[in-house]
């Protein structure tokens, strides 16, 4: 062992061999090689350790061996220089900046800003694009660097293409004329109009629940409903992928939060039994989306509602994406599962199909309504939806329930199927079920960011989602389809997207595919 102990380290020996090679000293090369450890010889099997002397005169082979030894000897990053901005922009993740250091709140955001700037310079920042005109199935936008693009638009959440619908625009104009642009104050003071009451009734009719409360945004509705009802000793069971407003509401309301596996009703049953085994006094709120925007799927709400009742738990379902855009008569996932009027609490948002801002909370309880109005801070302490917004949503609700609504949904689903079929036929992975949201799984953030950069110039406007919307390593394009998309437009977009992904993969020289596990 002592002799082995005294032997020189392999790095030093390889250094000596390389020096000797440059001098043409083959004798030293061979002698030094014999001292190289078994570890390294067995690992670097491509080096002819025992035959270095025979390289004399064989110039090509000598050059190859020197190159191979150098590769073992020199840090690899010195051989492969990269653009530092691009490396920084692509390798980081927003999560890397979630806990900034330092006591000065103003200066400690600088690190994050540096990353944002690197992504802007490399045109991989998807968050600051602006519209140049009213979007429909095609939109014109400008990016951070002032570059313009026009493309097939999958960024709008306007599933039934109401933004350009004459009746909707007329309703907005009439409300503007009748009431002006301002809502006078909080809905608890004098922010509501006659239109607000009509709208509450129409929405109640749509979801089959009698008591509806309006909120200024969808986010406010989700957050307000949760913090309005749940107290510190209560419990919340929430689907891991439920919307941010519900997750943050849960965090604000109580520390007793369990995030259950996506869609897993059995897990909910198990958690409920565990909680009820030790706590029979406090409330439990179970929270889920109807149509999940991240994965385009939905839970078995029939079983979920029954399980909740069996354990004295209350169910809240967020129908922001499905209400109006799918299901019989636009009743969404609730209607598809024959649950109109029988879910404890339903909340929704007007920012998708209803062509506006705002949200609502509905239930069969007048008491719950008054309670959430009082204690869901985002209702009491925000200005009410403006009369224009309220009128737009009321008109949208009317169309959704009409024959025209059925026709629009039929057109929407024709486009959805065209898009999904074309993408799948090209070997790409569309997640979930046919719905206005088509999540196209990419996975690796770098691939998604560079593909997104290419799409900008190729005539498709697709929103790329990554952390914190999706988990790390599971980025995707969220393609939001509209009734106004022609099937041929959808297929054209699929072709362009496939090309951009293939080119990005080549650009990054990446071999990873899109199978999940």
């Amino acid at each position, binding site marked *: *062992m002592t002799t082995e*102990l005294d032997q020189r*380290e*392999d*790095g*030093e020996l390889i250094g000596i061999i390389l020096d000797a090679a440059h001098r043409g000293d083959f004798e030293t090369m061979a002698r030094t090689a014999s001292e190289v*450890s*078994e*570890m*390294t010889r*067995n*690992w*670097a*099997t*491509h080096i002819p350790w025992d035959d270095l002397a025979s390289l004399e005169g064989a110039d090509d082979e000598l050059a190859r061996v020197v190159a191979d030894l150098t*590769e*073992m*000897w020199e*840090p*690899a*990053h010195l*051989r*492969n220089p*990269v653009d530092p901005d691009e490396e920084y922009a692509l*390798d980081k993740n927003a*999560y*890397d*900046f*979630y*806990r*900034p*250091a*330092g006591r000065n709140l103003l200066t400690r955001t600088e690190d994050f800003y540096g990353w944002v700037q690197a992504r802007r310079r490399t045109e991989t920042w998807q968050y600051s694009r602006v519209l140049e005109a009213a979007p429909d199935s095609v939109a014109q936008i400008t990016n951070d660097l002032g570059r313009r693009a026009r493309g097939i638009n999958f960024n709008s959440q306007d599933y039934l293409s109401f933004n350009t619908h004459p009746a909707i625009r007329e309703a907005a104009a009439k409300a503007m004329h009748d009431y002006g642009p301002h809502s006078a104050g909080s809905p608890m003071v004098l922010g509501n109009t006659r239109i607000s009451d009509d709208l509450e009734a129409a929405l109640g009719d749509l979801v089959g629940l009698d008591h509806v409360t309006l909120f200024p945004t969808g986010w406010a509705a989700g957050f307000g409903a949760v913090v309005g009802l749940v107290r510190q000793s209560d419990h919340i069971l929430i689907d*891991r992928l439920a919307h*941010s407003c519900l997750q*943050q509401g849960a*965090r604000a309301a109580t*520390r007793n*939060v369990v*995030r259950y596996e996506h869609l897993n009703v059995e897990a909910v049953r198990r958690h409920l039994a565990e909680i009820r085994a030790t706590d029979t006094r406090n409330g439990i709120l179970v929270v889920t989306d109807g149509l999940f925007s991240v994965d385009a799927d939905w839970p078995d709400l029939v079983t979920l509602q029954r399980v909740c009742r069996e354990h004295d738990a209350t169910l809240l379902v967020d129908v922001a994406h499905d209400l109006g855009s799918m299901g019989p008569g636009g009743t969404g996932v609730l209607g598809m599962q024959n649950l109109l009027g029988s879910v404890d609490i339903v909340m929704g948002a007007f920012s998708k199909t209803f062509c506006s801002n705002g949200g609502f909370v509905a239930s069969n309880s007048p008491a719950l309504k008054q309670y959430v109005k009082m204690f869901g801070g985002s209702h009491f302490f925000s200005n009410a939806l403006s009369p224009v917004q309220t009128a737009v949503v009321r008109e949208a609700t009317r169309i959704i329930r009409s024959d025209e609504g059925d026709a629009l949904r039929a057109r929407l689903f024709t486009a959805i199927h065209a898009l999904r079929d074309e993408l799948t036929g090209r070997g790409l992975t569309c997640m979930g079920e046919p719905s206005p949201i088509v999540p196209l799984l990419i*996975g*690796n*953030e770098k691939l998604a960011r560079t593909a997104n950069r290419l799409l900008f110039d190729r005539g498709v406007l697709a929103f790329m989602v990554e*952390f*914190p919307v*999706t*988990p*790390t*390593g*599971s980025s995707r394009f969220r393609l939001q389809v509209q009734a106004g998309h022609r099937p041929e437009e959808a297929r054209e977009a699929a072709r362009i997207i496939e090309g951009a992904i293939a080119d990005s993969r080549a650009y*990054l*020289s*990446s*071999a*990873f*595919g*899109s*199978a*999940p*596990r």
Partner: protein
Amino acid sequence: MYDAIVVGARCAGASTALLLARRGHRVLVVDRSSFPSDVISTHFLWPHGMSYLNRWGLLEQVLAVTPAHTTVEVVNDGISLTGSVPIELLREYFRDLHGDDSGVVQSCASVRRRVLDEILVGAAAKAGAEVRTSFTVRELIVEDGQVVGIRGRTVDGELVEERARIVVGADGRNSFVARTLALPKYDERPRCTFAYWSYWSGFDLGPAQLHRRGRLACAVVPTNFDQNMVLVWGPSEWSREFRHDVPGNYQKALDFVSPELGEVVRTRGTREERIYGTLDQSAFLRPLHGPGWVLVGDAESAKDQCTAIGMTHAFRDAELVSAALDRWLRGDTSIDEAMTVYGDRRRSQNAAAYHDYVCTLAEMRPYRHDELQLFVALRGNQQETDRFIATHADVAPVSEFFQASNLFLLNDAAKESSADHAVFEDFAETSRSYQQNLFA
């Protein structure tokens, strides 16, 4: 004519040969080395690695001569976490990847390659594979664009030619098979670590310890022969300066990362071998398969040593590829379909996310404030600590731990705060000082 020729008879190769032979296929496996012998490796097996050995009936033989533990301690800038990979996550891993969760064990161990590889080669031979050691492959036989066999030199210096339906390249990072086929490299990440290690007797500190401070790290892991592997690593940018005095800087790095460990090694330890080192660890992928050939282990996907996952991944590949090849060799499916199944698993989104995870870690940037705070938040939260360790070891998907709502919840449930840990005092200055090359 063999069903399969496996080039390389270590973790990936011997295992593949073993599994194919057990399913009744005619297998030849060759290696340049003779056994027992060592090869550059940090030779750690995470619990799924140990589970593979158990599934193949080899664990007992390994444990008879190797210390094993179920916990590991991870200390980042003084913030210590101890945990083990949860059994349910291990089961889930095996079900997802291989369709059955038999033989799962929770322990991990550091096994010298001169011990482990001999056991694997012996098992392959016992299973009926023909094993030829001290065999040098000189050429791949290619006919009509299809690899159909190998030409090589036997231990006696005889030149021979052997043919098979498929040639498996299990010959490591510097794969002869891959180089001969001139296969390109994908997903390269040049930044990696330099690592230096040796074997020490004279102390027993229990389960594996991993320490990290600034841009340097060290590990002390009990291994065979009543010795400890003591490993230090850092960013390859610092490797030139480190090399000026390898023994001195090795101790200096230990003292810097963990003064306690440095003291133990200096005062109680006896070094039993020379110091070994490598900095050729940049990550890459190669194409997985082509006409008549398929790659497994480091040959298909080489990564930095910093998460010590290479051997475990080699075992995983062996199970995946032997299951795929078996279906094809039995005539249940086409080779294309079999390879597509293998490829989907090996080039999945989870694999991509873990590749990025390791490569980013291998850059050895000082931990940021928020990363250290995550470790603080994990203290006292055993379930999530265990899940973090499982994620680090590629048992649980990166995407399930690093998910916004999970991280927010971790934060909210934290029992300790930065006030409890010294590194947060004057953090900005400490962070700056970490950028200084300690060996310059």
